[in-house]
């Protein structure tokens, strides 16, 4: 230590001998221990892991090729050969659901990452500058979030040529306002705390204060926001694909597998086409929501709902 240390501080803190024996636990272990107590959250983690594994090992798990259509086998009810039945073009629904997990999950996660990055940058800029810039930037966020969510989603989707990447793009364009607003609020509130004052007093630049002091403290709640965002993206992607504006056939997604069921005759005569992909959407979204809630409680006990 070559810096001059503060004599007052050094003299006052005297660590008693016995306290040294306490082991400082790993932060993740602490979080995990708190997380474990929440049964619903553990259940959510199990269900989600199941779907994640299905998505990763799709080629080994799918009994048929999801892209092979056999018109002679179209619209078959569930059987041993096709446990979830076949769709109207003769595709095996189980295989398409398994590959659909891949598509739906990766689209949701990538879109979440994009919207987090956009949101964090936007929110940081807004909070960093403050004043009228902040005012204008936040009014824009307010305006975007006043537009009914699915209307905005559908409009942007309808302007673009639907594909996997445009679906991701649409979801991120619409989804960044939440994290942006959150980060900006966090910067404004943390800015007034003592340790940030202290950092500023030592002459740190405003930018590095945000980067080294504000953002790390906002990461825990952001994780929760990001988790819940994945669930939201899964629902939005399925809704877009359901209307034919998201992921396009033959690429399987849980949403576009449901779009045929918009016709009442299909829904009545071949209900399995609507039931199985729908259950996957519900279970995945539910599990992620449970994880998000569990994380919220585990990361910050004060934030209990």
């Amino acid at each position, binding site marked *: 230590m070559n810096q001059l240390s503060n004599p007052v501080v050094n003299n006052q803190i005297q660590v008693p001998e016995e306290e040294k024996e306490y082991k400082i636990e790993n932060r993740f272990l602490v979080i995990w221990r708190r997380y474990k107590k929440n049964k619903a959250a553990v259940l959510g983690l199990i269900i989600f892991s199941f779907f994640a594994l299905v998505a990763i090992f799709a080629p080994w798990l799918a009994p048929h090729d999801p892209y092979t259509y056999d018109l002679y086998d179209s619209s078959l009810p569930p059987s041993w050969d096709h446990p979830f039945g076949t769709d109207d073009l003769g595709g095996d629904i189980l295989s398409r659901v398994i590959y659909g997990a891949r598509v739906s999950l990766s689209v949701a996660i990538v879109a979440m990452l994009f919207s987090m990055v956009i949101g964090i940058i936007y929110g940081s800029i807004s909070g960093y500058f403050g004043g009228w810039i902040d005012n204008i930037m936040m009014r824009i966020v307010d305006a975007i979030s006043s537009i009914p969510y699915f209307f905005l989603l*559908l409009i942007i989707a309808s302007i673009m040529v639907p594909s996997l990447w445009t679906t991701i793009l649409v979801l991120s364009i619409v989804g960044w306002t939440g994290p942006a607003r959150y980060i900006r609020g966090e910067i404004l509130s943390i800015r007034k705390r003592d340790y940030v004052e202290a950092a500023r007093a030592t002459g740190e630049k405003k930018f590095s204060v945000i980067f080294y002091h504000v953002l790390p403290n906002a990461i825990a709640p952001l994780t929760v926001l990001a988790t819940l965002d994945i669930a939201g993206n899964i629902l939005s992607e399925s809704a877009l694909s359901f209307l034919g504006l998201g992921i396009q056939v033959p690429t399987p997604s849980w949403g576009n597998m*449901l779009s045929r069921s918009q016709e009442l005759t299909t*829904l009545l005569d071949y*209900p399995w086409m609507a039931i199985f992909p729908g259950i996957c959407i519900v279970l995945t*979204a539910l599990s992620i929501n449970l994880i998000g809630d569990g994380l919220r409680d585990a990361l910050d006990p004060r934030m209990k*709902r």
Partner: protein
Amino acid sequence: MTIYFIKRVLQAIPLLFIISIISFILMVAAPGDPADAYRNPELGASQDLSGVIKHLGLDQPYHIQYLKWLKALVLEGNLGYSFQDGRPVLEKIVERIPATLTLMGTAILLAFIIGIPMGIYAAVKKNSLFDYFALIYSNLGYSVPSFWIALMALLVFSLKLDIFPMGGMRENYDSFDLMDRLHHLALPALVYAFGVTATKTRFMRSSLLEVIQQDYVRTARAKGLSEKKVILKHALRNALLPIITLLGFQLPALFGGALFIEQVFAWPGMGRLAIEAIYVRDYQVIMGTTMIGAIMVVLGNLIADILYAVVDPRIQYSKN
């Protein structure tokens, strides 16, 4: 109070202004332009539209186009013309609004009637079986896509059990038949309420749990009041307040949810109009519905805020 009221109204104006800019940008970004409405498909490319383009001002720079568009919008309520049938967009939307509001209003009402008692009971009987049931239900409500639950309800109750009609708003077109209307309204409203009730239950529960811990509730209990009186008279009043603002926050999602319910149940509302327009890429109508939807959300928020201020005397209006 009046100052707060005026200030809150003034705040809504820049918001609407920015929404109009966003709408305009999206409209410019969309393929095709308003002149397409005048195109005669039989003439094809040989048609000379330069006169129309000049008249509509489409040859001018964007900011002038925007001002012109905004002027028409604000002064005449002109949102452009549908390229399908040439009718004014506003007229097409206005005739659909009552259907949407009926559906949304019924669903929200149902959500309050079911969700609030459920939330109260779950909070009072914390960690009971009912509480767990309410928790599972409210999580499901967040996780089930509205169009899928609509499809399932349609499959079970309309197609298989034949209790409810398959869609539409009425069968009796000759006269107003209340029972017929209610019969058609029931299933879409219930399905719609499924998701909304979940959020209401959850919020009511957590809001009441928070209030119960406050000192004045302990005081009320210490006075020897019955538990029923403590909850219903003292705690509930303050716990209910956030639900009002929550409704304001939820409006954008509620409007969005209406899209899918209306689509699946063939409910002739704004949402269905928007989806029909999207299928044929009728951008004037799409933008119109979005603009109107956003305006309704802003107004809804305004009303929620003002209601909140009226109901809650604790709200302090800052002077700056």
